[in-house]
């Protein structure tokens, strides 16, 4: 197994390096680096969206969650797809038409506010650093089980190799690499299921064992309150996720974006079903692992035949790399394009900004390693946490802001700060009583953000018509002094 794995990993890393060098030769401007020259088509685009969404949270965390809690966690996917549909119909087309390079670009243009831009950039960097912690922690788990390696060593290898391919070609290289990664994930996960099922002695035997082991595994381990909270965290954050939205910018046009989202949902369905089966079947074969996060690595390393196992380990590593890469592109762009390029050196040349972006990527890649070594929770828990924060400060200014003319700069700033603060405050206080009241931090964060957005927008200076025209081209012009209309 270890020889096969070494060969498969070696071939995979060589291919990645080849694509990165090819992309680097074609990356000349900042638009090339951040948006791949806007040339990505629907199939590659859909695979890219699926790959950025399918992270360590899925191949390590979700497999572990199914291993531990069974079927009910699968309903979270409905939240994920609801988020995608909101994005497809209410967010992506308008953002793609606008043609920004980063999400703070949109915030600044929609609300005519550089303060809102800076705030969005800072919040992106903070919350995605948390997301990176989950990715690095997952890489540590895989390395511990598969290679017997210290987590720190694995994290440093993942960080270095991902930072390298992000640095070389930007979004162009990562798009083609992520296309490849999605195909590997679908193939690896899809082939693993029949092997596990055969080892477990068939479907009915596996079901019978799981039902006797813990009745909740095939029933409702999580109740409706919990599923609603998790689903809300995922759907609201995906609808406005900056790292997904950045990928819309790299696609050819609005039509391509919608087609790509449909392709992404298709890929995710295949992956979601496979991950559910793998989690449950690993529980049949190894009913008591020391950590649920080890389920996918143990399954790949100890159960599957060498080539499929190696492919799946590559799929896991690549899922982590693709997400780390997407996040680094977004956070690097937030620092270089939205903070440095706007506030510190507005006169900086394109090549200078690309260089700053690359330095930011390196620095931001290494910070989460320290936190990942502390192991604050299991991988899926950290992923859900960051989703809650993203939803709490971005859902309202992005989704409502794109579909309601009345949102103002002060409203956007208040909703971002208030949503983030309310989510954090509830997480530290009220979340402990979740079992009794059923109110989750994401619900508190988003509702607070929405109320602040509506109320503050009502009483503050409205956005100039020239900015609104970009996002509401067909709508009737409203006078500078008139009150904004209600949400549409």
């Amino acid at each position, binding site marked *: *197994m270890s020889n096969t794995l070494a060969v498969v990993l070696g071939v995979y890393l060589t291919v990645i390096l080849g694509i990165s060098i090819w992309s680097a030769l074609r990356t000349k401007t900042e638009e090339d680096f951040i948006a791949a020259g806007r040339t990505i088509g629907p199939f590659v685009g859909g695979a890219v969206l699926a790959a950025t969404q399918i992270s360590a949270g899925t191949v390590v965390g979700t497999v572990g969650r199914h291993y*531990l*809690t069974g079927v009910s966690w699968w309903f979270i996917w409905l939240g994920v797809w609801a988020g995608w549909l909101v994005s497809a119909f209410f967010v992506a087309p308008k953002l793609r038409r606008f043609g920004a390079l980063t999400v703070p670009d949109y915030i600044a243009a929609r609300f005519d506010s550089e303060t809102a831009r800076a705030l969005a950039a800072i919040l992106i960097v903070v919350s995605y650093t948390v997301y990176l912690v989950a990715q690095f922690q997952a890489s540590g788990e895989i390395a*511990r*089980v598969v290679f017997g390696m210290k987590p720190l060593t694995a994290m440093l290898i993942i960080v270095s190799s991902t930072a390298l391919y992000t640095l070389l070609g930007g979004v162009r290289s990562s798009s083609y690499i992520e296309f490849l990664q999605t*195909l590997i994930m679908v*193939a690896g996960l899809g*082939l*693993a299921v*029949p*092997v596990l099922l*055969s*080892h477990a*002695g*068939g479907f009915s*035997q596996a*079901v*019978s*064992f*799981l*039902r*006797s*082991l813990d009745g909740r595994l095939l029933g409702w*381990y999580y109740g409706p309150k*919990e599923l609603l*909270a998790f689903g809300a965290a995922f759907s609201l954050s995906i609808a406005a996720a900056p790292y997904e939205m950045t990928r819309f910018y790299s696609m050819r046009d609005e039509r391509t974006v919608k087609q790509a989202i449909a392709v992404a949902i298709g890929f995710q369905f295949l992956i979601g079903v496979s991950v559910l089966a793998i989690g449950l079947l690993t529980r*049949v*074969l*190894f*009913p*008591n*692992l*020391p*950590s*649920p996060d*080890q389920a996918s690595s*143990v399954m790949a390393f*100890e*159960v*599957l*035949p*060498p*080539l*499929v196992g190696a*492919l799946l380990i590559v799929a896991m590593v690549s899922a982590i790399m693709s997400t780390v890469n997407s996040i680094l592109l977004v956070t690097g762009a937030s620092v270089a394009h939205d903070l440095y390029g706007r506030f510190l050196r507005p006169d900086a040349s394109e090549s200078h900004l690309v260089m700053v972006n690359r330095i930011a990527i390196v620095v931001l890649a290494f910070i989460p390693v320290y936190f990942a070594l502390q192991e604050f*929770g*299991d991988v*899926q*828990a950290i992923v*859900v*946490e960051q989703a*809650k924060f993203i939803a709490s400060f971005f859902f309202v200014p992005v989704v409502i802001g794109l579909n309601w003319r009345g949102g103002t700069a002060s409203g956007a700033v208040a909703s971002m700060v208030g949503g983030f603060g309310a989510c954090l405050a509830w*997480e530290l206080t009220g*979340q*402990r009583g*979740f*079992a009794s009241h059923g109110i*989750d*931090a994401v619900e508190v964060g988003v509702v607070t953000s929405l109320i602040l957005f509506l109320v503050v927008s009502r009483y503050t200076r409205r956005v100039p018509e020239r900015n609104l025209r970009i996002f509401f081209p067909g709508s009737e012009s409203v006078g500078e002094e008139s009150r904004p209309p209600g949400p549409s």
Partner: protein
Amino acid sequence: MIGVLGLTVAGIAAATQLMTVAVDVTIDSGRAVVDASYRFEGPIDSVRLVLIKLRGQSVRMLSTEWTLRESAGLFEFGVAGAASSLPLHVRYEINGAVDRVPLFVPSIATDPGTSRVEIRVVGAGDFSVKDGFPRFRNDGRGGLVARPDNVPSLILLPPRGSLSINRLADAMVALLVAFGTAIWLARNWRRRAMSTSTSIPTPSPNRTP
């Protein structure tokens, strides 16, 4: 999230460890005898051991001190009482189809860094080692040995010559890689051919200036 998810995780991450597991399986014409020893370390209140129920088999306990409870999908027994170290020995017999042999899995987990799990099989001459689970190798004395990090619910030794799902899955991987590479090469070749034909325009007899 710790409030909602943390509790569920704590259930599986116990401080007590399963330090050593030694399983000896002797297979002999439709019958397998399993001799398994477990040693737990740390503050122990209770341990539950479960055995997966497999089709076409019957289980008979040879250790008389444990009473098995049976449900639809498994057999189980429990040990209760405070202790700082607990050795446990189980001996049982499987009759019927013995290409899969079920093993008792305790509710206390191993620690992959420090625990040791060893499964030895004697009498598996007619079985395919390559397709087995967990990963077995010949021990040089006519038997097989596997050292997984965790205790599996069963060992699988498919008869030699039977259809191997492992080899089928590995072949699928090779096939997919070959197919993907062929598509990629064909696409690139077509693209290159198209760009060559468009870059050197040929005069059309139908076109008038």
